[in-house]
């Protein structure tokens, strides 16, 4: 039977910490396993990304199986870009059968930003419809109304973009995600705490948990690249200047400081229910960030 540890924590008052791991392009999973090993006891759950930025990789579900094998708590990131409703439902059945019950429901980045630009984009569903699809499976039926043998139960998350330059349509969609059954939200990378504060004032009317997204930047160049190429990311000029001001080779150290400072402020000022750290290739520094931010997850 599934061990719904993360879901139990969602019902507590704990400051929640999640992070994410991007699987490798290839079959050498040793580094991913190393990252799982150093992170699993430092965070409440580990997301495994689903071909992030539309770059073909080892699959999210496979990565979640490895997190399980290593004794961690996985969050299955699931996008609608590459699978139609048959394939999504099938993967969810497999996930549940292996006790992978936390699912982050995403629409998925455009094929155009990835490394297989000529592929057919699927998008048979969107993030809201995926949430509904999973709640339908929990009712013992597939989305065509056929009975399931054995009924799964999931803990569902979604994403939200509090710093979007046009926030209203994002909030309309956010409310649809809440109505469709999202229990927790991991936000896009946050840099401007004023917009997080505004968003939280609005979001507090809903019975959900918000984990503020923290991106670990390693250099000014990386920040600029993300601004130009990674959907949904807005790194302010002041942060880019801060990263540019340090001597060569110290960028990541600066990025760790920036992330830790954000986390400390978020926690002290109670600006969210937790954080979600996206280290984008520098997963091994996540424990350093948590230490610098003086954040420790509760042991059970």
């Amino acid at each position, binding site marked *: 039977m599934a061990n719904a540890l993360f879901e139990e924590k969602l019902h507590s008052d704990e400051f929640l910490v999640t992070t994410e791991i991007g699987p490798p392009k290839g079959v050498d999973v040793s580094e991913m396993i190393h990252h799982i090993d150093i992170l699993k006891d430092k965070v409440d759950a580990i997301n495994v990304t689903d071909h992030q930025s539309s770059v073909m990789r080892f699959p999210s579900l496979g990565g979640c199986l490895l997190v399980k094998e290593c004794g961690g708590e996985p969050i299955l990131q699931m996008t609608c*870009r590459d699978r139609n*409703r048959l394939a999504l439902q099938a993967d969810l059945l497999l996930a549940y059968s292996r006790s992978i019950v936390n699912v982050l429901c995403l*629409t*998925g*980045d*455009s*094929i*155009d*930003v990835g490394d297989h630009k000529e592929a057919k*984009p699927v*998008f*048979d*569903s*969107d*993030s*809201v*419809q995926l949430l*509904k*699809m999973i709640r339908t499976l929990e009712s013992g039926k597939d*989305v065509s109304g056929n009975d399931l043998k054995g009924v799964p139960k999931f803990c569902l998350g979604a*994403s*939200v*973009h509090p710093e*979007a*330059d*046009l926030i*209203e*349509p*994002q909030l*309309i*969609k956010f*409310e*649809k995600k809440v*109505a*469709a059954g999202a229990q927790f939200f991991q936000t*896009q990378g946050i840099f401007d705490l004023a917009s997080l504060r505004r968003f939280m004032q609005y979001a507090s009317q809903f019975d959900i948990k918000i984990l503020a997204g923290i991106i670990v930047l390693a250099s000014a160049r990386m920040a600029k690249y993300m601004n130009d190429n990674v*959907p*949904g990311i*807005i790194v302010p000029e002041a942060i880019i200047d801060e990263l540019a001001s340090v001597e060569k080779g110290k960028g990541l150290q600066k990025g760790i400081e920036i992330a830790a400072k954000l986390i400390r402020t978020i926690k002290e000022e109670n600006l969210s229910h937790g954080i979600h750290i996206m280290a984008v290739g520098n997963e091994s520094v996540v424990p350093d960030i948590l230490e610098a931010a003086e954040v420790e997850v509760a042991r059970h």
Partner: protein
Amino acid sequence: MIVAEQKPLPEIRRMISPYERVLILGCGTCMTVCDAGGEREVSFLHNALRVAQSKGGNEAHHFLESTLKRQCEPEFLEMLVDKVGEVDVILSLGCGIGVQAIAERFPDTPVLPGVNTSFMGISSEQGVWDERCAACGDCRLEDTAGICPVTRCTKGILNGPCAGTKNGKCEANKDMDCAWVLIYKRLERLGQLEKMRRYYPMRNFRAIPRPKRLVRTPVALGEDDG
């Protein structure tokens, strides 16, 4: 209308290379309007092929020109019967529908596509065309303020913008408007934002099974119409 783009000359030359007598066949409707395969383009292509031939190569093609009002209608294709007997191949500058209508009407004559049929759309400025309809068979423009998310959102999603939109533009192409920002703004202007707050379920991709066929049944007239 249907929008297309003429294929590159080298590709056209490669396709026609096995044939001697070539009928270059234009189409007087959409292909004329989108400058891909009307009478004028037939003439230009004819000249270009002749010049290319005279500059070398061993081919000795003989070209005929013609433009039908519409390649996609059987009654216009009947006008071609005599000409088809005189050629080895038809190079159609009609859309993909025209090419296939010719293939069905003239089973013994090869037909080649001279254009890449691209989409259904409108001309937004001189020389620029934009896609507007995906012919999904399940029109939802009532709910989206007359702006189609199936066609104009790169993901074709139905419940609002993804998080990739920035400055009103799409994550897939910074020059392309985000369809959902356009829809949001127009719904707001029309005082119909409640339409965006509704949940829209997954599309029925079999609204009309492919290949689609439409059989018209008489429309029932209401009392007022009688």
